[in-house]
């Protein structure tokens, strides 16, 4: 795995690379511009000097036939040279100029600039002649001198820049460091947090770029906190709810131990067993609820609601028969619903179990499924006492028990039913049964009906 790159280092490298390339481009442009301007200026000086010499020769030098060496007047003079020829004879030259013409005399037509090599050095030479073409003037200048001017100019431009470079590096480093300081602050804050700390992070003056990151983090913390709270609530609820069955088991066992009478002891012992069964059922319910609250989305598949209902009713019928209750199923054909089989049957079982449990002996319980417009419906009705509006309101609160029902229960069945309904996106409606006068609980599966209306669809 490559070493993770530091954001700060990357920013610094980018900034320095950008600044460097801007500098180099500037230097190149300056070089071109200055050399062009310099050539123009110096060339014009050469031309002007040549013109002066031509004019002077026309007026002054008439008969003096031997070449005169003009004095060198300045220490820069050796870099500049001139020659004046009159009628092809050298009339005047600078001390550093050769005796031979700088440009070969020949056709005499040439006039203008040339760059030639004289004595191992490059010279820029301007040739001019008088009107009668008897006077020729050559003015030359060492190319080196131009280059040194150019270099001097570039030096003056680049030297401060070179000195500024380390300063710039330092300044950029500082600026980048300042810029990324909120990220470092976030890192420090996170590192210092206790593992249990789940309150949102508040960074003072967090830049807008970091807001999405912070929001995502805080959202995550909140979800974890909710999960942990639900976990804690589950543990507390479980411990709380198990106290009563365990107390019952303990009391009954103690009674059995102290009993002198056989019938009484038998009763106490069978009550102890009942208590164990109840505790087991409670644990199962609590685990179901906890799994549901952990919110793992189950895989959906298409299920035949009628078949599922018949299966559950077959399981529960003995309970109803033991209470001399009548239980009937009216299942419509092809009533497909979308859901997870196990969850759905836990849900249906809870509803039917409640109806049997909370209806008096001899009551009627009817389970029906039907295809309604855009949905499938499952209804569990009974001829029991029903519920008042307040109780219906409170149904599904954890551990809420319908008062005066005389039935034992943890009140968890409804919590589980509601939760499953939410997970498989079914709608629960509780009302008074129109036909049986007891409680009616209807489940509506909106998507299932759409699937169910597809005649080509076959169940898994």
């Amino acid at each position, binding site marked *: 795995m490559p070493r993770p790159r530091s954001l700060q280092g990357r920013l610094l490298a980018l900034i320095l690379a950008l600044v460097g390339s801007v500098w180099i481009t500037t230097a190149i442009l300056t070089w071109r511009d200055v050399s062009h301007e310099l050539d123009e200026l110096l060339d014009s000086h050469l031309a002007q000097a040549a013109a002066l010499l031509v004019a002077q020769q026309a007026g002054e030098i008439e008969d003096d036939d031997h070449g005169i060496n003009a004095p060198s007047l300045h220490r820069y003079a050796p870099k500049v040279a001139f020659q004046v020829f009159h009628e092809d004879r050298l009339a005047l030259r600078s001390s550093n100029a050769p005796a031979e013409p700088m440009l070969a005399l020949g056709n005499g037509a040439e006039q203008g600039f040339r760059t030639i090599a004289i004595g191992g050095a490059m010279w820029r030479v301007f040739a001019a002649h008088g009107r009668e073409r008897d006077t020729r003037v050559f003015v030359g200048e060492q190319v080196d001198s131009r280059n040194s001017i150019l270099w001097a100019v570039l030096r003056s431009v680049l030297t401060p820049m070179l000195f500024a470079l380390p300063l710039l590096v330092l300044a950029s480093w500082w600026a980048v460091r300042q810029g990324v300081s909120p990220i470092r602050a976030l890192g420090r804050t996170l590192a210092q947090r206790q593992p249990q700390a789940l309150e949102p992070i508040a960074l003072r003056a967090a830049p807008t770029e970091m807001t999405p990151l912070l929001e995502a983090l805080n959202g995550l913390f909140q979800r974890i906190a909710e999960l942990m709270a639900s976990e804690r609530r589950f543990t507390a609820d479980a411990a709380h709810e198990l106290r*009563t*069955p365990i107390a019952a088991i303990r009391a009954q066992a*103690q009674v059995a131990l102290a009993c002198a009478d056989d019938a009484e002891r038998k009763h106490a012992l069978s009550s102890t067993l009942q208590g164990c069964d109840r505790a087991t059922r409670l644990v199962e319910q609590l685990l179901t609820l906890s799994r549901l609250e952990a919110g793992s989305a189950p895989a959906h598949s298409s299920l035949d609601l009628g078949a599922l209902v018949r299966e559950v009713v077959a399981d529960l019928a003995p309970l109803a028969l033991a209470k001399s209750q009548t239980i009937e199923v009216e299942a419509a054909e092809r009533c497909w619903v979308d859901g997870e089989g196990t969850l759905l049957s836990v849900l249906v079982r809870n509803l039917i179990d409640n109806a049997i449990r909370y209806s008096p002996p001899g009551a009627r319980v009817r389970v029906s499924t039907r295809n309604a417009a855009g949905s499938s419906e499952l209804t569990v009705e009974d001829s029991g006492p029903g519920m008042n509006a307040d109780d219906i309101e409170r149904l599904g609160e954890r551990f809420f028990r319908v008062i005066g029902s005389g039935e034992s229960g943890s009140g968890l069945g409804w919590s589980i039913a509601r939760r499953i309904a939410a997970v498989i996106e079914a709608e629960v409606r509780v009302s008074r049964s129109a036909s049986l006068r007891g409680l009616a609980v209807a489940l509506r599966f909106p998507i299932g009906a759409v699937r169910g209306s597809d005649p080509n669809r076959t169940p898994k």
Partner: protein
Amino acid sequence: MRILLAEDDPLLGDGLRAGLRQLGFQVDWVRDGEAAERELRAQAYVAAVLDLGLPRKDGMDVLASVRRAGLMLPVLVLTARDAVPDRIRGLDIGADDYVLKPIDLNELAARLRALVRRAHGQPQDSLTAQDIVLDMAARSVTKAGVPVVLSGREFDLLHALMRSAGRVLSREQLEQQLYSWGQEVESNAIEVHVHHLRRKLGSALIQTVRGVGYMVARELPKP
């Protein structure tokens, strides 16, 4: 001692009733808060065991309202609500003891005896009148240091009289103390038990106040 048990869980209620009966209590069992309040107001119980999560009316509300009504009997709250704020609230509202489920039956009985004792201003788990000593935990009676064997009812009757020593108790009051619901009370049951007690413990112990009831004097009047 007749106590009221308010517990909605059938298995636990059944177990507690059977267990407390074994330990010498007369137990009336109600399964919801309204019934608990009604019975507490109507009957003379020596103590009550109250669950908090009761249907119809929460145990806390029952407790608050019987305390408001001026009932002083000792109330032991037996509950699954283990949070400290719940315990504090229960005790502040008027519980004399706050016990978490599950509990050992013997401990529950001992706590109830302790509550009753304290309510009657006795420091020990025994009652003394004249030369009779009644040990509530052991359910034993001695006369001048010699153990006397009593039946359950006889013990309960003596207990009721000695707990209120120096006061006259009517036959109805004694019947209420001795019999829980559903128990057949014969019309002369109390007279029969008094007769047996007098035979076993001496005729001077229990005095009859005609037209009013019976009384046990703490000390025999000096001749």
